[in-house]
């Protein structure tokens, strides 16, 4: 798995981090943004 980093298109209030799985598929990890988050 390889992180391709936080997405710049994260919706307001959300963190969205994109990972690349071994076989090339993408995985998006969503979480609720908390005050102070960069994303």
């Amino acid at each position, binding site marked *: 798995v390889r992180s391709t980093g936080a997405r710049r298109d994260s*919706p307001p*209030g959300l963190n969205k981090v994109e990972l690349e*799985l071994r*076989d*090339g*598929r993408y*995985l998006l*990890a*969503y*979480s609720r943004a908390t005050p102070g988050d960069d994303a």
Partner: protein
Amino acid sequence: MPDLRFDPLRKEWVAYATERNDRTFLPTDFCPLCPSGVGGASEVPLDTFEVVVFENRFPAFGPDRDRGRVVRPPTTGCEVVVYTPEHTATLAQLPVERVRLLIDVWADRYKALGAREDVSYVFIFENKGEEIGVTLHHPHGQIYALPFIPPFAAAELDAAGDHHKSTGRCLHCDELESEIAGPRLLFASDSMAAFVPNAARWPYEVHVYPRRHISTIADLDEAERADLAAALLRVAGTYDKVFGFSTPYVMAMHQAPTDGNAWPEAHLHIEFYPPHRRADRLKHLAGVELGAGTFVNDTKPEDTAAQLRRAARKRPDTGPTNTVGTAKTLN
């Protein structure tokens, strides 16, 4: 390789995905959707997560890959949405904050997938329970990004379009107004309403609607998203109460296509179809449903609505134990 064929007799697309015939089937010692830690073997190689979305390893629609390289452009895509790292949870058991996050994720995926030129419809759904045919119990839903508008959505849009042209009004809004005042209403909050539809095909079919005319999940405002989260939990929880066990269902979201056209007649809604006609009997699709396309419903929508309303008043501690998932955490 996923493939599509068009049936000219029914004017419908049929998808072929032969690799799905050998996909993971009800594993007992390993869950592909549990977090397996960084570098782990599951589909979610993370220590933990809130909600994850990933490309389905066995897509019915999507790009063709050879050793990780896309060798055929994606005409469409299939995503898996994992609601929680908790293997034995169900949607009905999630905290309302998690369902609220899930709605934000659905909205983001609708916009992202719908923005692709080849995607005409973003179909968001959940299959729950072995009776429905799930192959993994871990709570999850799916998103199909389709290169066409699927038949049920097309039929609804056609009817709503005719009504819009002749009256200038939204057919769904008119139906909703009638249902809110009628005997099939389960509940109405400030911005959402849930009811058994007048012509329910399934005995305990329930539709959840935003009361405002909204075409897509992405158009919901903050208060509506909070209300929708509460409404989904209430419907799923009511099923568990009425049957006394963690109830299987299909949950399907209908909304505006993403084919580049304007769809003022589209009205977002979410439909639930549990397969049970009573706690110990399933409604099967048989000759008249599969061969003729006409549903025979063994119950009256007004009666099941009343039954669901009564069940909803039961205290939460009289709800079911979880019998859909296996009892142990498999990560």
